[in-house]
């Protein structure tokens, strides 16, 4: 699968959503089950609303995690979302 472009807007696919914030554990609920979210995973997915572009998501995370290296954040966001795209949990609009 080709890597997503920076101008594309990631969104959770229909039938995929984050567990309620009140849950003790942070999960991405999908038709087949649930994925445990670690580190900034939940924050990344909150931004995948079909409004923000991939570039916006990266900018936002770089802002929120100023101590981490900017390039590394960009790479990790892209890898993370590509992986979820393959699992069918994310689409790019």
């Amino acid at each position, binding site marked *: 699968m080709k890597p997503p472009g920076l101008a594309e807007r990631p969104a959770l*696919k*229909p*039938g995929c*959503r984050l567990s309620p914030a009140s849950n003790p554990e942070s999960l991405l609920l999908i*038709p087949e089950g*649930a994925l445990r979210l670690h580190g900034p995973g939940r924050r990344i997915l909150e931004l995948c609303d079909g409004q923000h572009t991939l570039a916006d998501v990266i900018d936002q995370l770089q802002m929120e995690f100023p101590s981490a290296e900017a390039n590394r954040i960009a790479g990790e966001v892209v890898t993370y979302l590509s992986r979820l795209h393959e699992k069918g949990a994310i689409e790019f609009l």
Partner: protein
Amino acid sequence: MIAPPQALIAEVTHRCPMHCVYCSNPLEMQSADRELSTDAWTAIIRDAAGLGCFHLHLTGGEPLSRKDVEQLVRVARDAGLYTNLITSGLGLSRARLKDLVAAGLDHIQLSFQDSVEETANAIGGARAHAYKLRVASWIREHRLAFTVNAVVHRHNLDRLQEFIGLAEQLNADKLEIANVQYYGWAFRNRDYLMPTRAQVAKSLPIVVAAQERLKGKMRIDFVLPDYYAKYPKPCMGGWGRKLILIDPAGRVMPCHAAGVIPGLQFENAQDKPLRFIWEQSDAFQCFRGDEWMQEPCRSCERKGIDFGGCRCQAFLLTGDATATDPTCSKAPERSAVDEAVSKANRDDQLNQLPRGDWVYRIDPVMRA
């Protein structure tokens, strides 16, 4: 510590307007007058969420035979659960679907009996195919996950390509192609349902090619008929490991077929908390771990993968629920499976859709 179940499978009713010859419901179905009330299901759903479940599968029978499914979806959503409706589509109108989505339904699985109307209706024992097509188009008016369930067997496996085409045309997110498993009514009709070796061999490359072609568009899951497999499937992900099932009368079971095993006592969800039933009741404890296993399972390196296969199938085929699942090539009683398979590959008469000979599942009527 015993990890909590991931999903609650709520068999809310055994009533169904379809009469599929492969229905996995038990031959002894729960009648309508024994079904739990809305309040009872509400309490159970909340209890399951508290226990740690994150999915609720509403199934049956046809769950929509009940009028309160919308309400149960809302309860589940409020309790933090992800909800999936497994339906034949009968009982669903455009308006009702809208209400279900508004209540928070996340995923719908719609079953089809064939890609061709005539056989589809003959297998399901109801004129339902055309209506299902309409239901599918309504589903795509909403943002929820949509899976097409294709149940395959001897009389439709040759049209697998067309079946995949149908799911594509309906714009499904996912296609689940499941070979019939021989429990309940399907066990009664097994000889007529079992595909030939040639049919199975032909189906595999079709699935693989479609998976490749539809990557990123529609996912395809394929369940092999286990009579043709080398090793059994880890049934339900292992006894009492991932799933908890509650039947229409509130009996709490490790799997939908467990009722066939004599001597198992099922607790009722109305009497005891689910946590107690899950962690301590005999029905869940009896086949956990490997204490109960016989050889060759007990010293087999695959016992952590398939847990010795399916207990219900072991019982159905050998009369002993602790036996190695005879679909395993190492099973001492593999001959039970081999005989069925060789019959399926020998007897050409089974290729005709049987008249009179096979058994349509009946609808559990009110036994008042």
